[in-house]
């Protein structure tokens, strides 16, 4: 035990003594372990995110989009969409919507607002909660009422006095009365983008008021027990027949998550490749540093052998040094990897999760690299002829 402690202490001294060299050798290990940790950590975050979207929106939600196919310029009509549940009993609810955007100016400040025209079912399908006031209802058709997202509400509150509810907001020369404010809503999944900055009006109003208004998308809730492929075929069939050869794209939450996973796999593959190459290069770097260390300390090795060190003692001395070197690199790499995944989560507006498993993986891999790359130099050291080593 004592010898281990002594070896440990001396390994630190020796590495510190050649710190410039040691640090350079670490770079490869840092990048390697960093990429591996980043990969695992981001994977965990994406997986959790996907699960959360499932839980949040429900797996029975789909999006129907107007197909980009050739042919006549056809439009999704409100009527055509709203009759879908009656025609296909596997479609339970449908929420067609229009979206557009405009810049809203108040004093000197500007905000880009998402304009959405929706039906009453839109709120339920998207799990939107009204914090204040009420949602858009069927009775609001053609009227200039709107429900706003939290960010837009905060923007408006910053510049005006008095209650928001009942006050007016004008966009593209139309004036709307605010009837509700939404709770803060998480982005992502099938939800339309920018809900928190949205001004939501009745769909009929939108079709009249928004520039460039056209229904391109609808969300729907479908029977959870029917295979998605079947529902997809039914819906596409409906539009082909009723809409005069119109094509519809149907996307489920599951499919979205699949594509997210695919994206993540590409990312993992890239990081994995970078990680493995860096680890190999880093490992060679460590081996090189250890070989130099052995060459520089030949006389020390000879002396230690003369004083009674076993071959195993010498071998473990250099192995410990190599492992410490790699663990140091691994430690820095873990910090880098976790940092990268934190930034990734931050910029994707996803929740960051610390993956303890990846930390264990980093420690494990760096130990293995240390042992693997330290083994040859350590063995060389232990096999040195004591006399020749002493003389050098």
């Amino acid at each position, binding site marked *: 035990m004592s010898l281990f402690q002594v070896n440990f202490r001396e390994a630190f*001294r020796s590495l510190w003594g050649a710190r410039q060299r040691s640090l350079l050798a670490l770079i490869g290990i840092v990048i390697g372990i960093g990429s591996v940790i980043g990969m695992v950590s981001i994977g965990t975050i994406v997986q959790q995110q996907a699960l959360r979207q499932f839980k949040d929106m429900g797996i029975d939600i789909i999006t129907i989009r107007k197909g980009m196919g050739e042919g006549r310029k056809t439009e999704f009509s409100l009527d055509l969409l709203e009759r879908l549940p009656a025609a296909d009993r596997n479609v339970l609810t449908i929420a067609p919507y229009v979206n557009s955007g405009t810049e809203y100016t108040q004093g000197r400040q500007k905000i880009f607002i998402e304009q959405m025209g929706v039906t009453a079912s839109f709120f339920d399908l998207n799990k939107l909660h009204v914090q204040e006031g009420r949602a858009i209802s069927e009775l609001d058709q053609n009227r200039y009422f709107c429900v706003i997202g939290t960010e837009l509400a905060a923007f408006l509150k910053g510049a005006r006095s008095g209650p928001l509810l009942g006050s007016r907001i004008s966009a593209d020369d139309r004036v709307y009365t605010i009837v509700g404010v939404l709770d803060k809503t998480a982005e992502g999944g099938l939800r339309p983008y920018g809900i928190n900055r949205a001004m939501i009006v009745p769909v009929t109003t939108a079709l009249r008021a928004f520039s460039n208004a056209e229904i391109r998308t609808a969300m729907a809730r479908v029977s959870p027990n029917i295979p998605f492929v079947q529902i997809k075929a039914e819906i596409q069939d409906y539009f082909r027949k009723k809409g005069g050869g119109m094509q519809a794209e149907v996307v489920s939450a599951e499919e979205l998550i699949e594509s997210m996973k695919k994206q993540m796999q590409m990312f993992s593959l890239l990081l994995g490749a970078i990680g493995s190459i860096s680890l190999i290069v880093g490992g060679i770097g460590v081996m090189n540093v250890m070989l130099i260390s052995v060459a520089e300390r030949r006389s020390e090795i000879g002396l230690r052998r003369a*004083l009674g060190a076993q*071959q195993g003692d010498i071998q473990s001395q250099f192995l410990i040094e190599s492992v410490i070197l790699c663990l140091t690199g691994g430690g820095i790499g873990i910090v880098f990897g976790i940092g990268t995944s934190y930034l990734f989560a931050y910029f994707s507006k996803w929740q960051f999760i610390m993956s303890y498993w990846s930390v264990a993986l980093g420690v494990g891999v760096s130990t293995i690299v240390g042992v693997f790359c330290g083994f040859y130099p350590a063995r060389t050291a232990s096999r040195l002829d004591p006399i020749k080593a002493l003389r050098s």
Partner: protein
Amino acid sequence: MNPLMLEISDIRKSYRVGPTELKVLKGINLTVERGELLAIIGPSGSGKSTLMHMLGLLEKPDTGSYAIDGTRVVYDNDRALSTLRNRKIGFVFQQYHLLPKLTALENVGVPLTYRGMKEAEIKRRCLEYLTKVDMQERVNHRPNEMSGGQQQRVAIARALVGSPAIVLADEPTGALDTKTGEEIMDLFQRLNREDGITMVIITHNPGLAEQCGRAVKIIDGMIYPG
């Protein structure tokens, strides 16, 4: 107790240098008694370094036998050989060979760490032997903070700390000035006289031999009485 601390008989060693075989030791017979201070004198190239390595178990002879403190040396087991070096032999080198990053105390403790001894015990013994060589004031100094004579004293403490059967000194004063060299020789004599430590000093300097109890000469790979 065997009165012979060291007993070698008919040891031969030759090296192959290119096509020719160079015979370095040509049948060496030598005994060292317990408590003896023996000088082995020889010019350079006489084979005295090889003999020293042979005595220190760092080199394997081609033929012949070697017994140290009653134990016959078996060469084909590195583990046993290392243990024997650690327990029975204390080395003192011309160039001191202290480890530069370690303090005097840590340097002295190196042989003991290979015995798996507890740190507190190592420290106690190191202090004891550093005091014996008058280096108690330099315990935490590193080699580059000490003079040559001081470094050699630390090296002697390191040779003694494991209570070896024999101390082997290879030109111990070779790198020192005359006065310091004499002080080191005085130290050797005192350790031999007071503590009964068996010592073999290998040197090319006949002056040193006179201060030892007995001297033998090595010339061209053969031992002759001094």
